[in-house]
């Protein structure tokens, strides 16, 4: 069971929910693994303190032009065809600008002289380890690197498919999020009860509907704003999986990198209820 925790808006509490839900499930004896797919700003490790044993670099293909075989000014097909403008023809030779390359392989295929081979370049690292007996996987994108989807793919591949796999997603609705959501059995959308939270939740809802992934919503910091999100969920017939109340104590624990579960009184019950509702929703989908 792959459950992806996502949101439209950043900072609503995705990592909080993943870390606490995973801990609650682990304490309940469930066979659970976690993966942090927010490779631009991976924070899950701050709350779970994993013992990281393995670090592997992730690479993407990048073209290398053999100047002996390349016919230069007489051709220029690769530069012409590249949709990402990563190749130019200059002074009769092909220049490759690796950071712009999406690794699609078109130039390699198209070169009439077979002058292009594929080299590779590093986009980031994947780290694997354990939180006690719970497998933990994260990725970290190189600073200045624009492409996160291949690294997200690598994180997911490295993460063991335990009975329950919880995936922490980046914020937003564009390609890194789509990559993280790919293959999800269910998604939990985390939001906050404010106009910004509602607006961005709606964007996430549209995305999940387009991807046809079943989902429910958790309202974090419930009580800090107004009822606009509650009203929206009722109107749209979207399952409210749970709420986590607005609490100074919870905010302070979070600020220190501490979990709610085991540190903030009464909070374990919220995650227990959340899990019950998630299970119920998934059960309803299968029936």
């Amino acid at each position: 069971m792959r459950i992806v925790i996502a949101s439209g808006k950043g900072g609503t509490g995705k990592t909080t929910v993943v870390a606490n839900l995973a801990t609650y499930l682990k304490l309940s004896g469930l066979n659970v693994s976690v993966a942090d797919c927010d490779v631009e700003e991976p924070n899950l490790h701050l709350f779970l303190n994993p013992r990281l044993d393995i670090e592997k670099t992730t690479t993407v293909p990048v073209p290398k032009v053999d100047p002996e075989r390349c016919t230069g000014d007489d051709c220029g097909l690769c530069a012409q065809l590249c949709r990402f403008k990563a190749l130019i023809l200059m002074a009769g030779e092909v220049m490759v600008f690796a950071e712009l390359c999406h690794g699609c392989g078109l130039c390699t295929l198209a070169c009439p002289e077979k002058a292009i081979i594929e080299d590779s370049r590093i986009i980031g690292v994947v780290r694997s380890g354990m939180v006690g007996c719970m497998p933990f996987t994260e990725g970290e994108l190189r600073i200045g690197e624009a492409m996160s989807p291949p690294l997200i793919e690598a994180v997911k591949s490295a993460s063991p498919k335990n009975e329950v796999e919880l995936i922490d997603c980046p914020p937003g609705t564009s390609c890194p999020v789509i990559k993280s959501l790919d293959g999800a059995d269910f998604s939990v959308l985390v939001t906050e009860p404010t106009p910004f939270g509602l607006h961005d939740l709606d964007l996430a809802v549209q995305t999940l509907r387009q991807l046809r992934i079943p989902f429910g919503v958790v309202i974090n910091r419930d009580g800090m704003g107004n009822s606009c999100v509650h009203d929206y969920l009722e109107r749209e017939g979207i399952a409210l999986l749970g709420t986590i109340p607005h609490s100074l104590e919870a905010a302070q624990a979070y600020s220190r990198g501490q979990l709610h579960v085991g540190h903030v009184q009464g909070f374990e019950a919220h995650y227990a209820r959340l899990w019950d509702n998630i299970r119920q929703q998934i059960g309803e989908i299968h029936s």
Partner: protein
Amino acid sequence: MSPASKPNKNAKAIQEVVVISGKGGTGKTSVTAALAALGPKKVLADCDVDAADLHLVLAPDNIRTEDFIAGERAFINADACVGCGLCLEHCRYGAVSAQFEIINENCEGCGVCAFVCPEDAAVMLPRHCGVWHIAKTRFGSLVHARLGVAEENSGKLVTTVRQAARKLAEEQGASLILTDGPPGIGCPVIASLGGADLALAVAEPTTSALHDLKRVHDLTKHFDIPLMVIINKSGINEEITKTIGDYCKDNGVEMAGTLPYDNAFTQAQIRALSVVEYDPEGRGRDLLGLWNRIQARLDQDNQ
């Protein structure tokens, strides 16, 4: 001297401040909306095109809307397809289904399938990724956009928004472009920072935000953009507030100031107001102080 006769001089005088955070949810948009209410004549740009919120406070009156067509998307004409499977074999993004249909959300628009298809059944079509608008608001013109659901090319749309904002600033004789940036450190953030005069990072006193602030700082250093920091919600954790302050001091990053945690920000948002309008004597004053520090830095860097 009117702007029209010396466009180059105006082009030099315009400065752009981009508000970023690394970590989402620290209060970027609330701070941007508040700063929009202060300072000189400006043009506003919302570059958080994945999840744009600034318009919820600024209540824009859209005067121009443009389609954003960028890159391409593959399309396989089922009638011409003979099921040879070359497209599926060569697509590296999992965008071709077993039934030889394009899975739009995965398509990068690279053109490989169209290249290998022996029947010309696979073709590349222009990709409509979203829309962008030029609007009037009570604080000045706003350029904002909406990226289509599950779309790529946020970097290009961000660039389009910023270019439109710069053009407006030149036309209107505005001296400032204030840009609400996206969270993270990836492509859309890089696109929003290029050529900016100052990056303003809104942090909060949590281990997560400190971790992300350091990565944002690495990014601004990588692209040679000066950085200033605001610590929002400072009351939550005094210790980490101090840690962030120390980090800034040790790394040559100027602190613009701090803002206490205050429900006034949420109350203002609920009323579609900036906190400067909602709480002028309280948080409004704090923000004016912050703006003055920012303006001083802009003046200093302009010399």
